């Protein structure tokens, strides 16, 4: 992935020079050919992010527009360092591989807070510098040694108003009740959220979820296994609902508004008992831009203005309490920490997930396959 990015950058720079007339056409074409051919050679070399820019490793989508506008612009205005993206998705395994290989090309990963518990103590992450980053600008339990929550996302569900119009479902207990609410369900494939939802459906209070009772959760999940599908990506969750494959679907809450719009209101989001997940910024050990610069960058992302822009652009909810009161009217129903929802939602425990997540995912996969 790194070398691909290097090639892309070489080509972009080449294209700019060509456009500006600094490079003739033949040289540019040669460059094109070489970047196409030279992949194997570059593997041996070092394709690293330059020290005068910040590379954010995230999941793609509208990142240029959203993260660029919300955090990249104010940060560049203050420091002169532009924000670039690697959109290949910072999964735990990839971060570990990148740091182990000694070829670190990303400065900050848009990851989960539980990743910081899994990767921090093994020496794969830089500790957050709480002299620069503020512990008060996020929720109390979400400022950890190796990661700090910037935005929250969540697992909520949508239901088909045509199927359950008169007596709509309003809790995970309804979601798991296929006798009262017949129809197919969709859940997240990699255990997160699905386990918590099953426990809440089984009667566990939303603030007493952790440590998760795995046996109880898996028994509950197996009870609707024949009626369940499992999705692995946001777009898959979206299409399972929009294509009418399920009548109730667990989704990432920030997609709720899109789904309501795309289905002309046929599907409706339920925020009651949604599970709030701390999305976090974590820094791979030895990031190219250096620790000082990246901590400043994270501090910029903590500002209410940046977080509200991300909410507007991506539906991700601010984690900075100072921003809660400023959540606009049209986002109130969808945001996790809005006055309307904050008391209804359950909060994820990143420490439990960081320590037990691997085994939980495997037990979950075993139960559903």
């Amino acid at each position, binding site marked *: 992935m790194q070398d691909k990015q290097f090639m892309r950058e070489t080509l972009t720079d080449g294209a700019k020079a060509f456009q500006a007339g600094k490079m003739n056409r033949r040289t540019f074409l040669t460059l094109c050919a070489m970047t196409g051919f030279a992949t194997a050679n570059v593997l041996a070399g070092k394709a690293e992010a330059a020290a005068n820019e910040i590379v954010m490793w995230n999941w793609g989508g509208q990142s240029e527009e959203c993260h660029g506008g919300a955090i990249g612009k104010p940060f560049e205005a203050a420091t002169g360092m532009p924000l670039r993206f690697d959109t290949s998705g910072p*999964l735990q395994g990839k971060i570990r591989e990148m740091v182990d290989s000694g070829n670190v090309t990303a400065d900050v990963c848009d990851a989960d807070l539980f990743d910081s518990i899994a990767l921090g103590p093994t020496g794969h992450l830089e500790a957050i510098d709480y002299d620069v980053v503020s512990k008060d600008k996020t929720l109390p339990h979400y400022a950890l040694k190796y990661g700090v929550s910037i935005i929250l996302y969540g697992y909520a569900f949508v239901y088909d108003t045509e199927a359950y119009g008169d007596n709509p479902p309003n809790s995970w207990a309804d979601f798991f009740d296929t006798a009262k609410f017949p129809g197919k369900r969709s859940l997240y494939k990699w255990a997160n959220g699905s386990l918590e939802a099953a426990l809440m459906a089984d009667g566990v209070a939303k603030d007493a979820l952790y440590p998760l009772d795995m046996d109880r959760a898996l028994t509950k999940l197996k009870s609707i296994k024949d009626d369940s*599908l*499992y999705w692995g990506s946001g777009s898959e969750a979206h299409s399972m609902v929009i294509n009418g494959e399920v009548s109730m679907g667990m989704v990432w809450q920030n997609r709720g508004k899109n789904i309501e719009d795309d289905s002309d209101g046929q599907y409706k989001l339920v925020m009651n008992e949604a599970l709030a997940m701390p999305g976090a910024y974590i820094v791979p050990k030895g990031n190219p831009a250096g620790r000082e610069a990246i901590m400043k960058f994270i501090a910029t992302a903590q500002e209410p203005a940046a977080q509200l822009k991300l909410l507007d652009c991506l539906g991700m909810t601010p984690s900075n309490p100072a921003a809660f009161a400023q959540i606009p009217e049209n986002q109130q129903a969808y945001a996790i920490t809005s006055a309307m929802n904050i008391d209804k939602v359950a909060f994820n425990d990143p420490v439990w997930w960081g320590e037990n*997540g*691997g085994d939980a*995912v495997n037990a979950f996969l075993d139960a559903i396959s």
Partner: protein
Amino acid sequence: MNAIRKKINPGWILVAPFLLLVVALYLGPIMNILWLSVTDPEPGLSNYQKLYQSDTMARIIWTTFRICVVTTIFSVFLGYWIAYAMVHCHQQQKNYMLAFLLVSFWISILVRTFSWLMLLGRKGLVNDALGGIGVISEPIAFMRNELGVLIGMVHYMVPYAVLPLLVNMQSLDMRVMNASRNLGATGTQTFWRVYLPLTTPGLVSSTLLVFILSLGFYVTPAVLGGGKVLMIAEYISVQLLVTLKWGTAAMLAALMLLGVLAMLYIMSQFMKLSTVFGGSSS
């Protein structure tokens, strides 16, 4: 010098640089994986013990094996049919068929996978049409289950099955079949007793090709299986990327590698592998 030359074919000197490259870039990483499977998280065979201790592993391996066998049977059967038609039809029709085959061969696996969802999904073309004319009251569950995975995989694998068979059938001497008819055999007899045995190398190579490629399938089961059909490749990727159990992933990868090698070995006991891979049959 001459003594060495007698023992080592000088051709090896020409091949040597490439051989070294292959060893360095290909065998090196594989050795690394094998090494990981006995050292992560701790040295020993604990990863391999999971094979008989954990029901999950056994079930995933069984699912993978079952799906691969069924896919191979259907793909090779359909492939034989298509290749046979292509060899024996008019040149122009053959060109059309080859074009269609190659077009579907070249289309991205993602596109081909998702198009099945549109055709056979719960609210797909087929279910809508059948529901519309009143043949069915509930949509048929073609997709998001094992049937869906099989449909998607067979569709993807048919071109792989056709191409080796086509090459094999084209090289047959048709006078042999004529002789068989001339000596009094019926068409059916000629097919079963002369044509089919002559195409065995093609059958074996397309079976091997399809089966081995099926073992590593990732996208199709993940999308069309609705999360409930877990095959080895997807499990390996989860262990690498999500749960960080690299030892388990390496163990499964090693197991697949050994499985493929064992299969090639067993095949080699029955026939010369060089014929299968297009070498001379002498």
